[in-house]
């Protein structure tokens, strides 16, 4: 158990380590990467199984009791996030098995991938504010390395924007972590939650938490501080964009969910602000997407709008709404990553990612069309795919609490999403290729990528068709978040569950 609790960080770290050591041996690095990602996935699944049996894994690292030592704690939400991270990591590693291109860069991809995964998993399992900062930095530097991967003027430009804006965000996080300690005397999230829930937090602590939420909001790309995302995501190499799209913003969302549910379990002022922010995020994101004419630009803006849904769930604060946010989180990571993967394959086949220059894939690659349709429809919330349930729960939660306008925005966003997705569908798949059928390239270079997208699409369908257990899990996770007795116990009674 003790090993299992740290395994989500441990496995990517070891993989990273072996990758660094084996750097000159490109093929071996790829194999190691694949194995590492697969192991992480297995660990994630095991953790989910444990969490589903209502086990909250909590470990005091180094054996130092909380709040002095760092707590690692894996509840339902964390377990699910780790599992999804493993799956997306595995998909990216699969996609990264391509042979075309600079072998050094491909090798570096696998190394940095695991750096990123270590950071992401660390952020998911830690129960300590400053430690969260540290793992955020790990994933940040991993993402820096990844976004620049492959070089070129355009990519570098996007990298610059991404780096500078994220550095600012990260510094704000650091400051707020300091302020948290300064105003509450603790860095332990559980204790922080107890202080707030007991009403003992000074106004300064509120300020600190608000500041921290702003930094998370930047990471999560919420309105109005999302500008960095659509300015940079579209320049990266496909699996990198996919990883970012799937995982990175969600770490911000995860952190927001974690902190907000801990410190403010009841609907209040902060939630009201979040509600407005969520709605604005949904709308602006989806409108921004409608104005785009390139696959990844459309998808990038959609990340923004979709994050709005998750924050909507968080803002509503009811157990059902939180469950919706959790479900949305799980669903969206899979779907959005897959859309980027598929977009990349489509771009490779058609030779461009500008919609105008694409086309003809419906006829030439019908399987790709089906594989695209699944996540695209899911994103738009078409039943019975995963996105429908996510959206349904949020709409229901909004309406149940009387926030009909929020539900309206959510639904309106849905129709615009459908518009964007069908735009890509029409232009990329249905329309004939402007340069004729011959311009479409079909080879088996991407065969590993196909495994990745097929697997993710299957997951989307599964989460949709088999929404029962997943929803049950999400609701139970929301229950844990709303009433984190176990969480507090795990922290205040080290070693206990």
């Amino acid at each position: 158990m003790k090993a299992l609790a740290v395994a989500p960080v441990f496995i990517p770290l070891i993989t990273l380590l072996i990758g660094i050591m084996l750097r000159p041996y490109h093929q071996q690095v790829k194999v190691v990467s694949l194995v590492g990602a697969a192991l992480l996935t297995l660990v994630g699944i095991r953790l989910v199984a444990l969490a589903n049996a209502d086990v909250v894994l909590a470990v005091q690292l180094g054996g130092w009791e909380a709040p002095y030592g760092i707590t690692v704690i894996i509840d339902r939400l964390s377990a699910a996030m780790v599992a999804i991270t493993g799956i997306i990591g595995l998909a990216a590693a699969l996609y990264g098995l391509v042979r075309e291109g600079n072998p050094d860069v491909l090798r570096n991809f696998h190394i940095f991938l695991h750096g990123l995964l270590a950071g992401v998993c660390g952020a998911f399992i830690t129960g300590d504010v400053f430690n969260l900062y540290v793992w955020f930095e790990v994933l940040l530097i991993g993402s820096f390395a990844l976004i620049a991967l492959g070089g070129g003027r355009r990519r570098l430009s996007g990298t610059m924007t991404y780096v500078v804006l994220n550095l600012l965000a990260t510094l704000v996080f650091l400051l707020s972590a300091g302020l948290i300690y300064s105003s509450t005397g603790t860095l332990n999230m559980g204790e922080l939650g107890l202080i707030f829930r007991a009403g003992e937090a000074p106004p300064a602590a509120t300020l600190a938490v608000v500041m921290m939420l702003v930094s998370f909001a930047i990471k999560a790309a919420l309105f109005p501080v999302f500008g960095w995302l659509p300015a940079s995501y579209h320049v990266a190499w496909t699996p990198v964009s996919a990883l970012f799209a799937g995982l990175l913003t969600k770490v911000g969302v995860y952190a927001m969910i974690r902190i907000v549910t801990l410190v403010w379990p009841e609907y209040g002022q902060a939630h009201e602000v979040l509600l407005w922010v969520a709605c604005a995020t949904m709308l602006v994101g989806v409108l921004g997407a409608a104005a785009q004419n390139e696959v990844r630009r459309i998808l990038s803006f959609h990340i923004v709008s979709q994050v709005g849904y998750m924050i909507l769930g968080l803002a509503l604060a009811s157990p059902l709404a939180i469950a919706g946010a959790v479900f949305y989180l799980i669903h969206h990571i899979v779907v959005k990553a897959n859309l980027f993967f598929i977009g990349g394959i489509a771009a490779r086949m058609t030779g461009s990612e500008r919609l105008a220059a694409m086309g003809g894939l419906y006829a030439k690659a019908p399987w790709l069309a089906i594989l695209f349709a699944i996540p695209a429809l899911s994103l738009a919330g078409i039943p019975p795919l995963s996105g429908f349930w996510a959206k349904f729960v949020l709409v229901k939660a909004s309406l149940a609490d009387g926030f009909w306008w929020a539900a309206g925005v959510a639904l309106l966003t849905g129709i615009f999403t459908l518009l964007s997705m069908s735009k890509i569908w029409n232009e990329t798949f249905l329309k004939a290729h402007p340069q004729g059928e011959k311009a479409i390239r079909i080879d088996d270079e991407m065969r590993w990528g196909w495994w990745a997208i097929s697997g993710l699409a299957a997951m989307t369908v599964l989460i949709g068709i088999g929404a029962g257990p997943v929803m049950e899990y999400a609701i139970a996770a929301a229950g844990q978040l709303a009433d984190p007795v176990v969480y507090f116990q795990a922290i205040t009674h080290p070693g206990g569950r």
Partner: protein
Amino acid sequence: MLTAVFAIAFAALLAPPLARRFDDRAGWLLAAVPLMAFIWFVMQIPVIARGEVVTATLAWVPALGIDVAFRLDGLSLLFALLISGIGALIVLYAGAYLSDHHHLGRFYAYLLIFMMAMLGLVLADDLIAMFVFWELTSVASFLLISFQHEKAVSRRAALQALLITGGGGLALLAGLVLLGIAGEGWRFSEIDIDAVEASALYFGIMVLVLIGCFTKSAQVPFHLWLPNAMNAPTPVSAYLHSATMVKAGVYLLARLNPVMGGEQGWSDILIAFGATTAVVGAVLAIRQTDLKRLLAYTTVTVLGQLTMLIGTNTTYGLQAFVLYLLAHSLYKGALFMAVGAVDHSTGTRELSRLGGLLKIMPLTGAAVGLAAFSNAGLPPFFGFIAKEFAYAGLIQMGITGWIVTIAMIVTNALLLAAAGLVFIRTFLGPQGHYPREPHEVSVPMWLGPMLLAVAGFLLGAWHHWPETWLVNAAVQSVARGDVDVKLYLWGGITPALITSLITVALGVFFYRFRHQVRLQIARWRVFWGVSGDLIWDRFLKRVFEFAALTASAFQHGSLRLHLTLLSLVLSSVVFISLAIGGPALFTGGDYAALNTPAVIGSILALAGASAAAVMRGRLALVAALGASGLGLALFFLAANAPDVATTQLMVETLTVVFLAFVLRSMPAIPRVADEGAISRAAHILISVLFGLAVAGALLVVANVPLAGNIADWYVQNSYPGGKGGNVVNVILVDFRAFDTLGEIVVVALAGLAAASLLGGGQLAEMTRKGEPEFGSVLLRQAIRPLAGLLVLVSLVLLWRGHNLPGGGFIGGLVAAVGFILVVLTFGNYQARALMWVRPTLLVGAGIGCAVLAGVIGLLGGHDFLKGLWFFPLGLPLGTPLLFDVGVFLTVFGSMMNMMQRLAGRPV
């Protein structure tokens, strides 16, 4: 029921391989599936007619109370029969119609998916399950309309249909959710009607549900997608856009009529929209010269009429609704299929080119004739009874009814004229001019229309059959109370009969003078202006314009603007928080006294930073930055933080080194000032605000006494627990070693990332003699021992770090400084020869040590990163030391890695 739905879904999956294997003969195989479903439903007729219901439930999302709950009652059965029956015929028909199409399998699949969805829709008792199938029909419809995807019009039509029905679907979802909330249940059959009527949500539910139904059933103003959808292959038009899908909206209206129909508003809206739709559809229909479009508009009309009939909520009205629904499905399905056959056979659907086909295509002609009669509402066809009841239903309503009746008469007359056009103009009269040599079509193509048309006749002629077995149960499902159902062909001279006669007369008149009518209608230009696709296009254009405007507000591509926004948001969040807290936040602090070094450090830090802010030379910038860092280190020292101060010094030194090497290839910064005074003022303002925000936040927070005793615990436990005297270091390598683990990963990745970004090309560029600036003999002679000293010092720092200032970080940084000196003076090659191992391996080894230190605890049955100590020869060795060695190696290796890349000369 579940089996039927799943079997069809399964057939859809099988369709492509089957079609590949058997070509168009696959249709016979595939049609067997809906046929069997049809037979099963037929077998349920007696059960349902007894007033029973058949249910089947499959748990889906129990956590939300949502199941795939099917419930077969009269209304569902009626629809299920139509869907499966016509479906089977359509599958057959499609096989023949598209026999030469290379994606026939795909077509079958879509068609069967649609069939499955439609069946699920009408069978579902669960609100949400119904919605799931509802949306699936939209998607399947999209795929079918865009089947001929190479045509731009098809794509546009498909998108239009998807957006309109999809948008409506979302409104419907909201409506259903509200209904579920208000009705305290997720089953149609369990909704608490009284609760819904009493609910404040009633109006909202109604509007939302109606939007959903109206979009799906092509009610004005959402009707425009339906005619455009005729771009789909004819089997699609026949099935989806006449017999089934468009009826989904009507179905739901009927299904909800018992729940929602209690309020007058419901009826009024349905009648108003239904009537308008009927009129618009009919008027537009008569204008068409394309047979298929003509039929499409008549479908719009009928949908309007059906809506209107539900709205009547009278005995006759609801009976008429059921009858009409059945009749229309039969004859419209037949007509569409027949038109498709004509198109297939002659190569045209233009009225002006058609004529005299009866001799060539007698079977098709016969089917069309029968269907057209039913369409025209002539006795003894089923259509007649339907029309009769419709009039009766409207008349029952009183004044409103009469007004609407007029609409009904006009539209029915126009429909009659249209039916005339279809049959008379196409099959009678002189031979037309055809692109192809016409011929009678194959069996699957005429079988469908013929069966449907004959059914229309039979049901009319032997109307007690449907009355007993179908209509009664269906009407009971639709009506709010019990309704006495009695069908008749001849009910005496009733107002309804008279109205029927007027209709027929008017219809004949319209047909006779169709050219004049068309001319007359063509004059109503305003009407065309608002009803066409123009609005749609304009609407979409506006939407995209607005979207572009929104996007451009955030997609300006300027880093400065992004930063400005971020900064303003951050500042304002702080200021708002401060404002809420009020001035009390800033008073009553327990401040530690100032000390002079801190003040000096502070001044130096600020002065250096300000210098960097205004100077433009590269060197000046770097020097100012260095001074600032020095000042900060002094402050740290004054704050009794020697480890931090040392680290700051090291880091500042390396910052200067790296900056110097990166900046040497760059020119001085051309201009420091902004372009304009306003821009400059804004620039200053934003910076000042941000600075104030940071200062403000810190002031407030430092103003509260520090809660908790954590700090004390660390001091008390440092030696007994962590075996170290340097509390900071013990925290780093033991108490909070997990932080440090993450941190060295950052450092390691930063080095690798810089290397990856800069590539290795420049590494080789570096001269063997080192940097020219360091080529001095004196330096070369002196630096070797100095570097050796530094490495020695670094090892000492590492060793003693647990008890005195130092440790892995500082040690690693000092060692790096030593090696950087070597690199600068003797070049990379010598440095690497000296180091004999590449930096990345050092980094790997470092992380390895740190992880190993963590794992040892784990292997010993303790927690990860547990510090274990043993004292060989009295030396304090332990896993924290190993961890610190890992830190040392990682930092050292990574710094070397960075140096090698950053110091490379520009290419």
